């Protein structure tokens, strides 16, 4: 899995030979063999449409995935592919202009059908979310400690003393040094990385079962990115949470996730365990993503971009949505009613020519 760590300290690559990390493979086998394994969150045929002046924008168009307990699911895709919208739709945070349908099953209930008072009690308490920009996600006129304390008492009754104690505990947990002093500071006195730690503390205040991380490291510089990701993984382990990590950065996903879903133009085009997806992608878009990453091992000085631009989501193509940009396209693809095909257990792709897809080592 280390081959994508393009942030310096890269280990020798091993993927070209098609040899995924063995330990991960084994762990997955074990997990799949367990028949009692129920998903904590099951998203079925999720659609999120926005009414715009140009027409109905299908930001998310039939997305299904399951999140199992204790796992990290990565959702990767370029801007506008619908990954953030998917994430927000899960806790119904879309603006009023949006219409979502399908089913999002959590704890035996369909979150899309819950009355708004009940979804409010799910948010934060059961499913928490951290956002992309730590600069603007904190209330600028409220002390940092108060913001964490507020999250603690939003869903539970706590005495003032307990609240303060747990707040300091949380600040320590996410690695904020000198919490007693920082407690009374305002967000502008914190650096970007520290603010993201505060946001993580707030999100974890009620010990949620699921953490939705929407591009949690995109606004941070690379060294801080690494710290925050490490922290998130450590906390996920310690608190036994499941996590959905949304990113446009395949390298971030590769380092942290057990499984990956690749989104393109509002749909999931490929989904597989991380090691397998990196080693044997079965969708030309995934291949394109992988080839547009900088790699330390290859002598190439240039990256290979994916030509063209994603289709309009107001009037998406009837056949394969990647048709215009696909190197493997043939006429039948244009009219093929796309569906997810199972390549093998746990690996699905939305490409009818998946047998021809290959990660050529340029």
């Amino acid at each position: 899995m280390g081959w994508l760590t393009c942030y310096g300290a890269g280990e020798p690559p091993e993927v070209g030979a098609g040899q995924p990390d063995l330990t991960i493979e084994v762990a997955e086998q074990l997990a799949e063999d367990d028949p009692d394994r129920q998903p904590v969150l099951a998203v079925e045929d999720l659609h999120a449409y926005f009414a715009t002046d140009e027409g109905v924008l299908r930001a998310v168009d039939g997305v299904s995935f399951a999140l199992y307990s204790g796992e990290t699911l990565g959702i990767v895709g370029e801007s506008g592919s619908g990954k953030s919208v998917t994430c927000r739709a899960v806790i119904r945070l879309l603006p009023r202009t949006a219409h979502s349908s399908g089913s999002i099953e959590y704890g035996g209930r369909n979150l899309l059908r819950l009355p708004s008072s009940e979804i409010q009690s799910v948010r934060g308490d059961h499913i928490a979310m951290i956002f992309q920009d730590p600069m603007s996600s904190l209330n600028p006129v409220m002390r940092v400690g108060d913001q964490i304390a507020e999250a603690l008492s939003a869903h539970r009754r706590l005495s003032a003393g307990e609240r303060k104690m747990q707040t300091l505990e949380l600040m320590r947990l996410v690695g904020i040094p000198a919490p007693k002093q920082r407690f009374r500071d305002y967000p502008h006195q914190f650096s970007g990385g520290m603010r993201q730690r505060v946001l993580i503390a707030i999100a974890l205040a009620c010990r949620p079962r699921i953490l939705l991380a929407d591009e949690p490291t995109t606004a941070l510089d690379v060294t801080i990115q690494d710290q925050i990701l490490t922290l998130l993984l450590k906390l996920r382990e310690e608190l036994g949470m499941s996590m959905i990590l949304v990113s446009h950065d395949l390298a971030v996903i590769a380092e942290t996730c057990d499984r990956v879903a690749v989104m393109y133009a509002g749909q999931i085009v490929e989904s597989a365990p991380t090691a397998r997806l990196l080693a044997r992608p079965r969708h030309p878009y995934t291949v394109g993503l992988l080839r547009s990453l900088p790699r330390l091992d290859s002598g190439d000085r240039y990256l290979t971009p994916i030509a063209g631009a994603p289709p309009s989501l107001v009037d998406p193509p009837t056949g394969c949505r990647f048709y215009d940009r696909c190197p493997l396209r043939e006429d039948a693809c244009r009219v093929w009613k796309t569906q997810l095909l199972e390549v093998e257990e746990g690996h699905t792709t939305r490409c009818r020519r998946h047998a021809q897809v290959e990660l050529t080592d340029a």
Partner: protein
Amino acid sequence: MAVEVADSATVLAASIGTGRRSRAGRVNKSLAVGLSLLVLIIAACLGAPLITHYDPTAQNLLIPAAPPFTYGHLLGTDAPYGRDVFSRLLYGGRIDLLIAFGATGVTLISGTLIGLVSGYLGGLADTIIMRIVDVFFAFPFLVLVLAIVAMLGPGLMSLFIAIWAVGWVSYARIIRGETLAARKQEYVLAAEALGYHKGRIMLRHILPNIFSAALIFSMVDAVANILIGASLGYFGLGVPQPTPEWGSMVADGQLYMVSAWWVPALPGLAIVLVGTAFSLTGDGLADVLRRGRAT
């Protein structure tokens, strides 16, 4: 460049010296002058019995229309009753300041809450509230207040009710606009993602971030309300005689404009002074709060 470096060095030194307040060193001049003027006027009006021993309504028909600096009467006496102008100004100021704070305070709060709800909830509630606001805006402020006071009968309470009924609309409109902008901020989205109640999001997360706009406007509004109070006093719809009030003092004194100019001019000057104090405070607040927001 060197100046910049020196400047940031002093700011740094100041912030180290004072703990965390780097801005405390610089005092805003308008705010300082306006506030001290305001405090001085309020203190003088409230402490009137300590400053002057004259009863503002006591007549002294022996010395009507005594000019300022007459022995015993600092600002003279009025015509034709010979009441002490200085003490009438101080006691009258109580009424005018009461109008400024009492009327403005209530409209500031009610208008802010209405605007907050309207902007945050949106939908039907927003449409209805904003149409009501539009109706109020269609009429001149003074005309509406006059109509309500005429309906209820003259007196201080009618004046308050009239201003309370009409004055909130400006605040509602200002705060609604600010709320619409704040609602799209990520910290509001983040608060929603944590499952906070709507009331908590509105009052604890949105309001503290936008309240400065309403507060700054309230300073201008306070001046307007004093003028309204004075105008009604002038029209004879304000506080009944013989209670002193600056507007009615101007109205009563205008007959003696030529023979005793100080009788109408001094209460007029008092109105100007209070107005200036409020305006300076508002200006200063705007500077300080906006700078605070920019960082």
